[in-house]
């Protein structure tokens, strides 16, 4: 919810749509009642070169969305090269052996389509939405840049400046964003999730054309990717086009993603950022948590429900206690982000009322968490939380974006399509005891970073 871990080539669209999934990982994806069997009902096949293909038919409007997901992201960079995965994402728009720099997006615009891309720790994804009869045009272009990227300093260097401006816009202009970056660095003692996806300023400045091309050759291959097509199209048509355009791309050796692990975390950390540009203080805490793919899977479902019941909306426990009843905060939220290959995060964010102090807030949060752990949540509260979450799945079917996003993210973070399709059922199955177990296991201060965003002059 409050992370900026997903970056896109061009601002608003994907970042906004993905911010939701950052908060409720598969939730942007999910489905309804336990009885309903499937969410997106995708069809799947694999080409001989290892490219996995997913088709989500939706004949409501004559439009299609093509997405290609690569299993590579910021956590796969070498130390000292932070920002490379995201920089390369920008450079994929800079031409191939046969397509001029910028031509990709110009062609998409000329056929009335929209395109963009985004990068996170575990994945990089590219997508276009076009009229259904233009699918072939964008498939041809996307397949081309899977293997034929051609870069020169002439286009790479101005783009590096663009990324530096992106970093200034997203992070350096904003004390809150600067603090989030420092918090990540403190939360991860050893794992590369601690670095910013966009990269550190000095390291972005040092990235060269050669670094980008080497990273591209190492990670961009059909057997390290998933193609997803959603919309007014049939499986047969996608198969025919995919075989024609993606089929000839040779498979190549791709290394397993083995990243440094976190040592046992033994000390609660606090991070404070004071700035004259902060006028309203805020308090946050983020706990290291298991992810869906690295941890006891059942725990992750329980943690989703915990986040919802604890701080997922205006009837949630923390909002009710801190904002409505005690009236000391203007906002209170909890979130769980489990859609990652290696580690998840569980977070709390509370903003005091104007004039209030974070010290008072911290004491109140501590007290309320203890109370929640002691008293538990009512069956009605848990049922309501599950209802809201599972209903996301029905809402997610309104439009083309949610399916490819959820399935692609699952693929890149070690989950299966079945995990996406069954998410609502598994959420429905979470019991009150499991929610409490999850709370007890994750709310361990020794594995957390508490952060204070403060005005310059006082605490």
């Amino acid at each position, binding site marked *: 919810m409050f992370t900026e871990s997903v970056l896109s080539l061009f601002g608003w669209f994907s970042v906004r749509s993905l911010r939701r999934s950052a908060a409720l990982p598969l939730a942007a994806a999910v489905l309804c009642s336990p009885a309903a069997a499937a969410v997106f009902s995708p069809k799947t096949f694999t080409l001989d070169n290892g490219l996995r293909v997913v088709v989500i038919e939706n004949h409501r409007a004559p*439009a299609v969305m093509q997405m290609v997901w690569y299993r590579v992201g910021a956590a796969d960079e070498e130390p000292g090269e932070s920002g490379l995965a995201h920089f390369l994402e920008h450079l994929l728009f800079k031409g191939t052996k046969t397509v001029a720099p910028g031509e990709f997006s110009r062609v998409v615009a000329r056929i*009335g389509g929209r395109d963009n891309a985004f990068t996170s720790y575990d994945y990089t994804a590219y997508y276009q939405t*076009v009229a259904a009869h233009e699918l072939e045009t964008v498939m041809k272009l996307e397949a081309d840049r899977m293997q034929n990227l051609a870069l020169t300093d002439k286009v790479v260097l101005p783009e590096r400046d663009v990324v530096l*401006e992106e970093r200034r816009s997203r992070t350096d202009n904003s004390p809150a964003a600067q603090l989030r970056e420092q918090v990540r660095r403190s939360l991860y003692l050893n794992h590369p999730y601690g670095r910013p996806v966009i990269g550190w300023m000095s390291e972005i400045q040092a990235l060269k054309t050669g670094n980008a091309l080497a990273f591209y050759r190492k990670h961009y291959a059909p057997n390290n990717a998933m193609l997803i097509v959603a919309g007014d199209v049939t499986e047969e048509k996608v198969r025919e086009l995919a075989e024609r355009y993606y089929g000839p791309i040779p498979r190549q050796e791709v290394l397993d993603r083995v990243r440094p692990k976190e040592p046992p975390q033994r000390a609660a950390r606090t991070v404070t950022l004071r700035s004259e540009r902060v006028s309203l203080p805020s308090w946050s805490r983020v706990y290291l948590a298991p992810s869906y793919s690295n941890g006891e899977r059942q725990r992750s479902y329980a943690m989703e429900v915990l986040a919802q019941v604890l701080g997922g909306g205006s009837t949630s426990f923390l909002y009710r206690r801190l904002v409505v009843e005690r009236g000391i905060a*203007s906002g209170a939220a909890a979130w769980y982000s489990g859609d990652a290959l290696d580690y998840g995060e569980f977070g709390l964010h509370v903003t005091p009322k104007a004039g209030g102090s974070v010290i008072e807030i911290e004491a109140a949060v501590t007290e309320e968490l203890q109370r929640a752990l002691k008293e538990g949540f009512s069956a009605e509260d848990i049922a309501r939380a599950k209802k809201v979450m599972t209903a996301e799945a029905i809402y997610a079917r309104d439009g083309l974006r949610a399916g490819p996003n959820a399935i692609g993210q699952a693929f890149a973070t070690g989950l299966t399509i079945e995990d996406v399709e069954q998410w609502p059922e598994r959420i429905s199955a979470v019991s009150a005891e499991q929610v409490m177990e999850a709370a007890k296991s994750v709310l361990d201060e020794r594995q957390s970073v508490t952060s204070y965003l403060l005005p310059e002059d006082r605490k």
Partner: protein
Amino acid sequence: MIAVRMRRTVRATLVAVAAFAALAAPAAAADIRPLVTPGGIKVWFVHDKSVPLIAVSFAFKGAGAATDPAGREGLAEMTASLLDEGAGDLDSQAFQRASEDIAVRISFDAGTDNFLGRMTTIATERDRAFELYRLALTQPRFDAEPIERVRAQTLAGLKQEAENPSAIGRKLWRNTVFSHHPYARPASGTEASIQNISREDLVGFVADRFGRDRLMVGVVGDIAEDELVQRIDALFGALPAKTKSFKVPEIAPQGAGKTIIVRKPIPQSLMSFGHAGIKRDDPDWYAAYLVTRILGGGGLSSRLYEEVREKRGLAYSVYAYLNPMDHSAVIGGGTATQNARAGESLEVIRSEWRKMAEKGITEDELRYAKAYANGSFPLRLGSSRELADMLVGIQLSDLGIDYIDKRPQLIDAVTLEQANRVAGRLFRADDLTVVVVGDPKGIVETK
């Protein structure tokens, strides 16, 4: 049941307009039915069973933040925040719980000109969903607890905005361009005005503005037509037939040629720029829309994108837009550049602005802009939620029920000659009102 059951086929033959047939995407497959309920309420409806959802959007025309009384700025927004914080017999928590129990999504929004509402529900929960929506709209409680809570949240938000460079820039730009007009006033209010707002103000806002004379409704989803008209009557029927009238004067944008700098210790200079634009009902609207798209339209290709971002690496984001309002119109834009190169960025933007007026656009640019406009439009209508909003938007701008059909022809009818004449009229580089927040080098403030 249904007084009017006029059917329109929107799957028309828009591609017939020759030359760009191959480039144009097919029309949105939307069959818009203009219904009139037994109670006399007009509803535009698209019956769509592809998803088990019902999306309802509505507007009270001319009941937006521009009608906030002086000294009560922020009233429209506060009302919007409070409608679902307790209604009928349900207090705030009870109302929110009831909404979550059926996972209905209810929201209200105060625009500058209009007051907007949205409700989306899972079709099987529609009984309760329509009932909750009706309560929020017609029997909001405005209890003390939620009023004070929302007041505190608004004040906290204002405090946060006070140090947010883009909010500072937008506010000052609006202030400069709209001077003493209501459009200049902050929609979320000021600390003093928010403190002043009372329960009577909130009750009065609703009583004076929520009425059937201002109402426009769009519905998309999985519900039968005869059932829908009954539900619409139940939903809006209790509203007064006539409401008070509010006079918002016309205003021609002010501050032409001004450059204002707000010094802040941040690494970038955030720029807002613009001047008088063109109204939605102007006969030159489509030409203006296309030339603005060519200069700085969204997406990954435009002249500004090319010159500022691609060639020079000056910014991550740069854009231009048209903003037609009921009582004024502006063309504006924005970007953010490192302080040291802020002057260079602004120069490039000014020079592109000037070039549009003096040299115009090419035949190819026009052709591609049309292809984009026609191809991308249906992509914006792919969900029930988006389509319901569009149905209301079309009514607010009075574009006609066949607008989705007609639009490609309106776009395609723009000639190069017209586009260049309109560019000459629209883009006035020397008139740009520029607000810069940051520590820019190479930009001189005007006095």
